[in-house]
C-alpha cells in the first residue's frame, strides 16, 4: 500500500522482491518510497551491512554519520530516520526487537579473510560491484550501517563490542521514504569486533504490505 497521502497520486508500488544472501555475499535491489524493507538473520549472530543510494541522484548516499547527528545518537534505534549525506530521510527503522543493537560507528573490513590492513577498501569494492550489478553507480561508497552489531558506548568514550546481537530469524523492517537502491551484505567477521567461524545467510524482502512479510 502506498503511503497515506492527503492527495494520493494514484500510482501503485512496484512488484515485491525476495532474495537470500549467502554468507560472505552482497545483494543489491531497488526499494520504492512507501515499500517495506525487511532483513532477517536466518541463523543468528550474523551482522548485516546496509548501504543505499537515491535512485534519482547517485550523489545521495545513506550516511551513518549524518544519521547519528540527525538524532543525537551513537547507535541506530527504533523509530530513527536513516538519512543521506545531504540530510534527507531515506528510510525509517520501524521494527526492531528490544534486544537488537545496530552500530553506526564502525567499518566493515572482513579482517578474518582480508587481514588487519586494507580490508575496508576491499569491502567497498565489493559493495561498488554489487550496486553496479543493479545498474547503480553511486558517486561515493559510504560507510555502512551495521545491523545487529552491538557496540556499546561508555560514558568515558570507550567502545565495547557485544558482537552480533541477533538470534535465529530476528529481523528488522524499514519503511522507505525515498526511491533508492540498497546493497546488503552478510560480511565475514572482524574479530574482535565480532567473530563467527563462517558468515551466515540473510533473507531480504521488499514488500508492499506488512502482512506480506514472511
Amino acid at each position: 500500500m502506498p503511503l497515506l497521502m492527503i492527495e494520493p497520486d494514484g500510482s501503485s508500488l512496484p512488484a515485491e522482491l525476495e532474495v537470500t544472501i549467502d554468507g560472505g555475499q552482497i545483494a543489491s535491489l531497488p526499494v520504492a518510497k512507501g515499500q517495506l524493507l525487511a532483513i532477517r538473520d536466518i541463523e543468528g549472530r550474523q551482522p548485516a551491512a546496509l548501504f543505499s543510494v537515491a535512485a534519482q541522484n547517485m550523489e545521495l548516499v545513506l550516511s551513518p554519520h549524518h544519521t547519528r547527528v540527525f538524532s543525537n545518537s551513537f547507535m541506530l534505534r527504533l523509530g530513527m530516520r536513516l538519512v543521506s549525506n545531504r540530510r534527507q530521510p531515506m528510510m525509517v527503522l520501524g521494527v526492531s526487537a528490544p534486544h537488537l543493537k545496530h552500530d553506526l560507528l564502525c567499518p566493515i573490513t572482513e579482517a578474518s579473510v582480508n587481514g588487519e590492513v586494507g580490508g575496508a577498501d576491499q569491502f567497498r569494492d565489493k559493495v561498488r560491484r554489487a550496486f553496479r550489478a543493479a545498474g547503480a553507480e553511486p558517486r561515493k561508497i559510504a560507510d555502512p550501517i551495521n545491523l545487529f552489531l552491538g557496540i556499546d558506548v561508555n560514558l568515558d568514550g570507550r567502545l565495547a563490542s557485544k558482537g552480533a546481537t541477533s538470534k535465529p530469524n530476528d529481523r528488522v523492517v524499514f519503511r522507505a521514504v525515498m526511491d533508492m537502491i540498497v546493497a546488503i551484505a552478510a560480511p565475514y567477521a572482524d574479530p574482535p569486533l565480532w567473530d563467527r567461524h563462517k558468515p551466515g545467510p540473510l533473507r531480504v524482502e521488499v514488500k508492499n504490505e506488512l502482512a506480506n512479510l514472511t
Partner: protein
Amino acid sequence: MIDILNLTIPGGHGAAFTAEAGNLIDIIDLEGQQALDFVAFCSDDLEETLSCVETRRFLRSLYIRKDDHLYSSRGRPMFHIVQDSIGVHDYTIPACDYSRFAVDFGCPGHRNCLHNMFEPLRVHGVKSELDVPEPFNFFQNSPVVEDGRTAVVDPPSKPGDFITLQALVNVVCAVSSCPQDIIPGNGLRPSPLGITVRSETAQCHC
C-alpha cells in the same frame, strides 16, 4: 625544528596545505572556544584518506589522546598525536555543509566546513566535495551522555590551546574554522586558527 609553513585562518574560513612524512603540524586555537574540522589525504594516492571509522576500529574509543595514532581508510597509521594541550576532540560529527544550514536553520548560502575545505583542496587534485572524507573535529566538545546519546556544547579550549600531529606519510590536509554561529559549538563566535608545519630537515620557505 624549522617552520616551513605558518598560516592564520580567519574565523569561519578554511585552508589546505601539504606536509611530508616526519613533519610536525601544530593546530592552534588562537582565541579559544573554536572547533575546527580537519581532513587529510595521502599525497601519493588521494583515494587513501584519514578515516574516522578505521581509527575508531583501532582505538576502540570515541576520544583521541596524546600518543594515539590516527588511521587511514586502508588501516595504515597516518598521524601520531605527539602533543595535546587540552584533550577534548571529536571524530563523530560530519562536517557542516550547505544542507546543514539550509535544512536545519533556514539559512541557505551560509559558510560551512565542507565548502571551506573543498575549495582549497581543489588545487591539490580533489575533484568533488564527495571525495572529502569525514572530519576529525579538533577542540569540538561532543560528550557522550546517558544511554549512548551525544550532544555538542561549546569547547573548553583557551587561547593558545593546540594539538600537534606528526605526519607518518606525505599528506594533503585541509582545515576549517567551523563557521557555526547559530547554535553552541564555537561560543557563537567563529574565530581564527593558527597552523604551523615544522621540519627537522627542510629549508625554510616562509
